[in-house]
């Protein structure tokens, strides 16, 4: 009887009621009209008279390995592969996703081999991608796109698009989303191996399976990987992995943050900084991203978390703002913490990612600006905003969590549409070294390539779409002389979808 009673009351109830991402997949959209078909019609119409939109059309097939046409000279000390990731499968069966963040991820690889550069592009073969590819149509609703008769979602990994960033971990690639697991791929063939169980080979076992793992992990100079995972319930999981990707420590903190989205964070040599932006949800608005509102009266919360224990040590409230991305943080011996943010004073940039899917241009979206913060031990803080638009901030990889001399960013100088320039800001003198590609180019994230630990050495590398010829080019600059323009440009014979983030993996 004891055993029978036990079986009758077994503890399945609580777990089968978990709702970690309720509202994530089109739950709040009630319109009976096929908004995805309308989005496709609007985009195609806009594209016919606005060729700069071509980078947002998406791709339907992989790109086989192709040698690029080189202008200038490829630096001999660049050996390895530059990987980028971004949403690329936006359309199926006359439907187009309503938000730029919804498409399936595609990895772009630029292999530096034997004096040449080769491009290869491959969709991440997630379970979602494979099912929809086979069906020839979208099967799952996206955050802002409701599909009629959508398949149910039992885990966020059912709809993991692995579309935001890509890092190298122990010889493999991890394609990253922000609401589910990393997806492992082969570094040379881009073949997908499957979702990573973050607790594997550690004391955590399956306790971490399927958890959110943000697309912006920070890899410290020792190689250790730090990250967070956010649940719209306000829970934040903090991860510390070693350089081989084996989890060393994990902790969960509960916050009152109701903004539904948290994209990036920072580390110093002692602390993790989680910055909760001034975002709130307005459930009267449709969609997951669509319901996110900026609250101009809500201060940002900076959570300072001890890296050894992954527990909250103190909090600072700073002026309202919102940032997708942060460059770096570092700490003085007296405990003063410095960090930078690409700060918006509204959430229009987030909603622009919906407008662009319909072919709307970027008019009226105020750009992010690099904003420098100092958090003092007495609880006070200082904020200083730099001139000029700046996002996609990057730093020399050897300076993550320690004081950096330079901050690289992408910005808009002559045009409002996406980005047209790249710059390096000297954090000490404020001097800016900038290169403007001009109105014929749509510029993507550029990343520093280290040749040693000296920030003055090395290169900056990034892709840009050339609008008149509808081709993408890879560009390499001397890090300490950006304004002279690229020293090497490698042309693809075609264009690839505009993406989000990437990293260079040096040949070992």
């Amino acid at each position: 009887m004891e055993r029978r009673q036990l079986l009758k009351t077994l503890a399945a109830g609580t777990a089968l009621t978990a709702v970690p991402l309720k509202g994530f997949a089109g739950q709040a959209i009630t319109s009976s009209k096929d908004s995805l078909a309308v989005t496709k019609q609007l985009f195609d119409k806009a594209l016919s008279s606005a060729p700069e939109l071509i980078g947002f059309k998406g791709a339907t097939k992989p790109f086989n390995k192709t040698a690029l046409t080189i202008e200038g000279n490829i630096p001999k000390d660049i050996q390895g592969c530059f990987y980028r990731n971004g949403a690329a499968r936006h359309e199926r069966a006359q439907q187009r996703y309503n938000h730029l963040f919804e498409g399936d991820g595609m990895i772009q690889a630029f292999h530096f081999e034997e004096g040449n550069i080769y491009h290869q592009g491959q969709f991440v073969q997630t379970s979602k991608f494979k099912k929809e590819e086979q069906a020839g149509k979208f099967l799952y609703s996206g955050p802002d796109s409701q599909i009629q008769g959508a398949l149910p979602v039992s885990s966020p990994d059912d709809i993991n698009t692995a579309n935001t960033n890509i890092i190298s971990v122990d010889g493999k690639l991890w394609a990253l989303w922000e609401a589910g697991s990393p997806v492992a791929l082969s570094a040379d063939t881009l073949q997908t191996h499957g979702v990573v169980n973050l607790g594997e080979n550690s004391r955590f076992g399956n306790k971490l399976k399927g958890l959110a793992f943000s697309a912006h992990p920070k890899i410290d100079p020792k190689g250790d990987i730090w990250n967070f995972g956010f649940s719209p319930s306000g829970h934040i999981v903090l991860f510390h992995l070693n350089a081989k990707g084996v989890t060393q420590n994990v902790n969960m903190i509960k916050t009152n943050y109701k903004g539904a989205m948290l994209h990036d964070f920072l580390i110093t040599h002692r602390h993790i900084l989680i910055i909760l932006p001034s975002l709130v949800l307005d459930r009267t608005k449709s969609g997951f991203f669509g319901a996110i509102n900026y609250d101009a009266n809500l201060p940002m919360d900076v959570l300072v978390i001890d890296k050894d224990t992954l527990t909250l040590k103190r909090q600072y409230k700073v002026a309202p703002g919102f940032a997708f991305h942060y460059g770096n943080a570092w700490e003085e011996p007296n405990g003063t913490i410095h960090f930078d943010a690409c700060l918006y004073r509204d959430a229009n940039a987030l909603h622009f990612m919906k407008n662009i899917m319909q072919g709307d241009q970027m008019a009226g979206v105020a750009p992010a600006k690099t904003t420098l913060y100092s958090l003092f031990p007495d609880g006070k803080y200082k904020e200083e905003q730099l001139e000029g638009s700046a996002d996609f901030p990057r730093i020399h990889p050897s300076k993550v969590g320690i004081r950096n001399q330079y901050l690289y960013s992408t910005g808009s100088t002559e045009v409002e549409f996406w980005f047209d320039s790249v710059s390096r800001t000297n954090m000490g003198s404020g001097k800016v070294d900038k290169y403007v590609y001009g109105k014929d180019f749509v510029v993507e994230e550029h990343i520093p390539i280290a040749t040693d630990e000296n920030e003055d050495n090395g290169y900056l590398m990034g892709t840009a779409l050339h609008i008149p010829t509808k081709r993408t080019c890879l560009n390499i600059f001397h890090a300490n002389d950006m304004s002279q323009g690229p020293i090497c440009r490698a042309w693809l014979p075609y264009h690839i979808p505009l993406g989000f983030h990437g990293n260079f993996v040096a040949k070992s």
Partner: protein
Amino acid sequence: MKRMTLLTTLSLAFASNIALANSVTFTIEQVKNDKGTILAQLFKGATNYKAGKAVSAQQVKAKQGSISITFNNLEPGEYAIRYFHDENNNGKLETNMFGMPTEGYGYSNNAKGNFGPADYNDMKFTVSTTPITTQSTVSY
């Protein structure tokens, strides 16, 4: 010894696959391996389901592929089944830190949850005077 005897008795009872009138045979498909057991609970009516009060429960050894479980001698009425694949044999459904299941699970009528458990109305079935069948594929 007492515990072993109890388990043996239960196993024999649970292993019964003969479908009688007033019975339901539940087929669980796509069990991914032979580890541990499948634990299934039968609920009579929505109120009992919501309260977590099972009228009967069965435990069978997991087997890769398909497994059938029969609940016999049921009073006529409305029922629903939920189960999970207890791979580590600890009697509870393992979850991750966000509370999401990390072991396989499912429901009668192959009902599926969407960002949460399945709806009772999708799981329910009626038992009367003839044996009935229902099935589920495991969600891992």
